[in-house]
């Protein structure tokens, strides 16, 4: 077990290193001269003087060979220094960290909405397979998967904020502000989770120990809650964990629609401001969070399901 975790950790470090190379080189995908871009971002397009460009090229070390620049940058990143925003001059990491709590809040709220919808519906449609409820919920999940979440967000704003004015259109604040974005986020995810819970439950209900429990004369309710649910949830928890990773990585579109000041909104804003160091910082931060969450999910999966042992893979 420890061996497996150690192997995963080493593997994760390699992936994260490669991710840093990728994030670093993103800037060089931009057509044109990075120094010129930075000058443009900092001084505006009207004050684009060759002097400024050369000064930036020298000050940012852009005249060094790329690998030297990368090693220098990586060294800073490893010391927690993601550089400074090209536009505002504020340190990138602190900018991201001040935005992160908002993203976490939204992610948790969205997850709660998703589970509130998917757990009861998933269980009912599994127990009453092929009933009317089951068919309706399956059509519902397909629609939920296909619905663009930005459209759903706009519809919710239309129905709950613009006309009756129950919830604020957008912004950040108390519980009233989080409801619409959380519902938007949650319904999309619920579609996936519901299907998963249903199929997992159906699978488990076919097992021998359920038949045994029935033969013992246990009540159907206690069979479902005590015997089936526990086992059906193991694969579900993995997917929920992965979804959480995606959410923490930034719910870019929903944060943008609702002007929610999270990391996703920060990324979009920095893209439009062409603030390269902030873009790099956000992308790297999201990737690292995502990889970390995945690692935690993998390890917890092992604890949850004693049937799974990774030792074989470790040798």
């Amino acid at each position, binding site marked *: 077990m420890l061996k497996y975790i150690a192997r995963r950790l080493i593997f994760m470090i390699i992936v*994260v290193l*490669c991710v840093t190379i990728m994030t670093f080189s993103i800037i060089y*995908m931009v*057509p044109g001269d990075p120094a010129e871009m930075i000058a443009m971002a900092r001084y505006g397009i009207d004050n684009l003087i060759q002097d400024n460009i050369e000064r930036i090229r020298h000050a940012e070390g852009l005249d060094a060979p790329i690998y030297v620049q990368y090693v220098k940058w990586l060294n800073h990143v490893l010391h927690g220094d993601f550089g400074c925003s090209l536009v505002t001059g504020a340190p990138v990491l602190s900018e991201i960290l001040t935005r992160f709590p908002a993203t976490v809040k939204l992610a948790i709220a969205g997850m709660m909405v998703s589970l509130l919808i998917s757990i009861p519906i998933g269980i009912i449609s599994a127990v009453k397979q092929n009933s009317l409820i089951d068919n309706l919920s399956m059509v519902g999940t397909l629609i939920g998967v296909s619905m663009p979440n930005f459209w759903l967000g*706009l519809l919710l*704003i239309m129905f709950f904020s613009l006309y009756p004015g129950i919830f604020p259109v957008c912004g950040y604040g108390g519980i009233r502000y989080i409801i619409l974005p959380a519902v938007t986020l949650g319904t999309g995810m619920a579609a996936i989770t519901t299907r998963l819970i249903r199929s997992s439950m159906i699978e488990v209900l076919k097992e021998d120990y359920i038949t045994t429990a029935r033969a013992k004369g246990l009540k159907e309710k206690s069979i479902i809650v005590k015997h089936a649910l526990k086992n059906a949830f193991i694969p579900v928890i993995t997917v929920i964990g992965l979804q959480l990773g995606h959410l923490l*990585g930034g719910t*870019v579109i929903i944060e943008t629609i609702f002007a929610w000041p999270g990391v996703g909104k920060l990324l979009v804003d920095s893209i*439009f401001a062409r603030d390269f160091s902030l873009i790099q910082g956000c992308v790297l931060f999201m990737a690292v969070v995502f990889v970390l969450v995945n690692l935690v999910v993998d390890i917890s999966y092992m604890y949850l399901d004693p049937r799974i042992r990774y030792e074989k893979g470790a040798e």
Partner: protein
Amino acid sequence: MFELALKLRPHIKNLRQLKKNKTAMVGLIIILFLVFVALFAPFVAPHDPYKQNLEKTLLLPCKEYPMGTDELGRCILSRIIFGTRISLQIGIIVTGLTACIGVLLGMMAGYYGGILDEIIMRIVDILLAFPGLVLALAIAGLLGPGLFNVMFALTIVGWTGYARVVRGSVLSVKEKEFVEAARAIGAGDMHILLCHILPNVVTPIIVMVTLGMGNVILAAASLSFLGLGAQPPTPEWGTMLNNGRAFMRMAPYLTTFPGMAIMITVLAFNLLGDGLRDIFL
């Protein structure tokens, strides 16, 4: 080529099963309808999608303009009809490219193994380390707004799923006796890959491509909605939705109809993909 067709025959038999699958048929019919609309857009659309009529701005849906007009007096229905072309084009191009790249790299990784496998799969791991749309967003954003850049970004990000699945299937197929036999009679790697292995891994690819079409169309619309994809006045659905946001209070139909178009299109591909999965896998 003939050999390949012969190998695919059992799959064609499967297609007959598709007729019995109601949801898949609904999806297929919607897709055929969309393709028809896209091909004959100039004949189907009641108006020119670019033509402005400043005397008739923000009209409610009426007989002449079944979905109303936007802030510049352009017919929304016509714009949505022409938008079908753009969305299907993006879907076909990106899905086609990602599937080709993914299948090719996946087959090479699975078949040759060794260092090639390591390199390809590590690249996959790196690309999968970025959550959701983040990498595509960053790439498209840095390259600058535009449909071409969106397609490029989605292609770079999107091939990994195909590569993973194909590699897995190839690993299990390549140990089979018929591959062994082909090698024994002196068939080359290329021949074995194309004529013996590919037909045996093609079913999951078909399902993935169908579901992938929906996902690509949704992702492209999302990026356009953020302002990174098609630029106005192009009648792209995501761009139209973004434009309509400013008029949500006065003219909610500006956002309602393009959103519905995206949803129906994606839903159609999901319905068909689900049906195909039930039949094939």
